[in-house]
């Protein structure tokens, strides 16, 4: 088996921060190398260096023996390296088919008509990744998993020798992860070399031939998955322990007026019914999880509560209707959403983003909160002056959660907070939520499809499927009554 990709001594500095430090590895034909490490350890940066999107300060990258480290990105791509980004980057004005077609085109100014074969080829690839039914839709109307499929489709279309895949499983359900794993496995059969980054440790371990673990830009372990996962350093900095259940012995009072009362909520997007007659209650001090697969309607539900989408039905907050209130007024009333899309101010620093969150509070209180949050997410402390846009995926997620907490919410809505976070951070957030629950009167509404995170904290669980609530009950009964498909 030929070595396809060889990386040696790769180093990248951003100002004083060394994001990647003297990194080296090799991947052979038909081999999948897993790259794991905590948030901000330099995994995505390493991929960008290989792809020429960021310029290495030192080191070498060889593709089938040829040095490519100083080549421009498009030339590296033409030479046979493909990258699937951590965040989907569709062309919004084009259809899915056109997005795939684009990846099939040669880099030519003179190619004015793409021939029939290209169209046909795009369709085949679309079908291979499971996009056959939505080829003529625009990306904005696609559910999350389909967007990720489209990114994979583009990579397949380019038919690269080396594929770099950044967090393909993030935000996907168990079944979807299976699908994606099968697609990535097919890369191996085609003799491609694959570099795979993901925080879904189980799925990575099941898929890869070898694992390389990074920490602070450096390699800390390399070898077969079982060995690396048992490595004490990897356990300490990355895997952490299991998330414990925090079921409370006494369920909180559920009598009286609920804090939030949603009844018969329906939302239409054009002709598509995103929510149908959804009713739910959240009582003060409660911790309620809404569990549902991608596209079930969780985000729509939260956006309706936050006043971001028009709806029919009633949303009552502390006895008064929220109908007609602006999103700003709703947020000032204490309903704070930490959206799936994060919505950070990309060109502002971490500190500025946090300050904006604390705008409406007294200085003393604000300072105290800030100190607590920076203690909770130490990495944000060390990145205080950095622009939010340049944070790693997981760091952005931490910042979004921290900013929401800065607003001192009475009802905190967390939409998929686990997206892209390392296991050890999940554990930290889990503990933080527990502390919050015990020390403050906060009420939490959590949307998740990752039930291992949603269940341990929940007093009650709602299951949302195809726009409707199909089950509700205490977390303890979830596994036996509604767990199929989630556990």
């Amino acid at each position, binding site marked *: 088996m030929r070595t396809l990709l060889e990386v040696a001594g790769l180093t990248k500095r951003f100002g004083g921060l060394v994001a990647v430090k003297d990194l080296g590895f090799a991947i052979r034909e038909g081999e999948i190398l897993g790259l794991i490490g905590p948030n901000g350890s330099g995994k995505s940066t390493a991929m960008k260096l290989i792809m020429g999107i960021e310029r290495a300060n030192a080191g070498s990258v060889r593709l089938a023996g040829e040095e490519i480290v100083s080549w421009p990105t498009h030339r590296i791509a033409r030479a046979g390296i493909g990258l699937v980004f951590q965040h989907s980057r569709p062309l919004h004005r*084009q259809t899915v088919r056109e997005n795939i077609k684009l990846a099939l085109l040669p880099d030519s100014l003179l190619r004015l008509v793409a021939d029939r074969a290209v169209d046909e080829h795009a369709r085949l690839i679309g079908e291979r990744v499971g996009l056959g039914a939505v080829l003529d839709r625009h990306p904005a109307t696609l559910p999350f998993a389909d967007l990720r499929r489209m990114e994979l489709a583009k990579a397949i279309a380019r038919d690269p020798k080396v594929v770099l895949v950044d967090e393909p499983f993030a935000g996907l359900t168990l079944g979807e992860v299976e699908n994606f794993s099968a697609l990535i496995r097919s890369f191996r059969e085609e003799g491609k070399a694959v570099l795979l980054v993901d925080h879904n440790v189980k799925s990575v371990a099941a898929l890869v031939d070898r694992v390389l673990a990074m920490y602070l830009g450096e390699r800390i372990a390399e070898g077969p998955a079982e060995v690396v996962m048992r490595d004490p350093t990897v356990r300490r900095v990355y895997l952490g322990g299991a998330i414990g259940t925090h079921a409370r012995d006494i369920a909180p009072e559920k009598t009286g007026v609920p804090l939030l009362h949603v009844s018969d909520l329906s939302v239409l997007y054009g002709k598509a019914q995103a929510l149908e007659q959804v009713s739910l209650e959240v009582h003060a001090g409660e911790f309620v999880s809404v569990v549902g697969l991608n596209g079930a309607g969780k985000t729509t539900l939260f956006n309706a509560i936050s006043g971001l989408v028009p709806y029919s039905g009633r949303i009552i907050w502390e006895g008064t209707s929220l109908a007609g209130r602006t999103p700003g007024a709703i947020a000032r009333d204490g309903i704070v959403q930490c959206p799936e899309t994060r919505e950070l101010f990309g060109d502002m620093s971490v500190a500025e983003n946090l300050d904006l969150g604390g705008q409406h509070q007294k200085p003393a209180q604000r300072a105290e909160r800030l100190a607590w949050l920076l203690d909770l997410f130490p990495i944000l402390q060390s990145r205080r002056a950095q622009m939010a846009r340049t944070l790693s995926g997981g760091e952005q997620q931490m910042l979004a959660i921290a900013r929401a907490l800065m607003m001192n919410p009475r009802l905190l809505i967390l939409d998929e907070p686990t997206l892209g976070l390392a296991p050890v951070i999940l554990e930290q957030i889990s503990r933080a939520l527990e502390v919050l629950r015990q020390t403050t009167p906060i009420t939490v509404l959590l949307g998740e499809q990752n039930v291992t995170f949603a269940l341990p904290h929940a007093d009650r669980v709602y299951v949302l499927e195809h726009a409707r609530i199909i089950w509700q009950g205490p977390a303890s009964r979830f596994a036996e009554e509604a767990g199929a498909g989630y556990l």
Partner: protein
Amino acid sequence: MRILSALVVLLALATLPFWVSGYILGVLTIAYLFGVFAMSWDLLFGFAGEVNFGPTFLIGLGAYSAGLLDNHGVPVWLCVIAGAVAAVFGGLILAVPALRLRGPYFGLITLVAVLVLQQVIVIFAGVTGGEIGLTINDVLSLDPGHNYWLALGFLLISGIVLTLFSRSAAGLILQASGQDPIEAQVLGFNVVKHKLAAFAISALFSGLAGAMLVFYLGTASVDTVVDISVGVQIIIAAVLGGRRTIFGAVIGALFLIIAGEILRPLGQLSTFVVSAVALGVILFFPDGLVGYLLRRRERA
């Protein structure tokens, strides 16, 4: 169906010289050339994703090169071609360094380029006619009808070429480069190359139209082909008609020129009225007139 109605409209426009006055033909001739300016601009903004604040840099280069050569006795058609070549050449000299910069800098550089060109024309007044303008003795044709047909034919050809290009495979790559240059590069496209090509095409048509305009007007002056305000009009026309539609730019240009002409008796006020209408359209139909109609059809 669409092609049929387009043909009917086109035929109707082509018969105009037989039954409308020379004055109206004159206004339309200028409007058509203006339409080419706006379409060329839309190729850069709507497709390559670059805001060119200096369309008049390209137009001015074409116009003045043609005019100066004409004053030296070069045949008219050669002057027009030379104008186009000069616009492409000058445009590339500007774009090669400017496209390396990210963000709003491309726009700023194009803006500065117009000011520089304007200064150069004023400083070398001896050759260029300076503030007064350069008188041009030759014309494309003495017959207003012929001039009208030339402009209409030129508009048609430019429209077809630009539309086909924008919808071609290369046009798709260009749009990708405009929307997400990093992603486009990861897909193996040389973004700078594609944007430069778009710039060159835009410059080619701008230069040609600029050269034809001065021969029609009989003079090349800063106020008519270089001034920033002319560039702003072109931008308004393209946005008004609907960015990323090519065709919309023509509609926007026709609207601006014809409305300006109809309201001319109002004097200063006419500019105000036209601008207010344009502002209203942009505020309420951010996709522009044609963009709005296309969107509605898509949704239906």
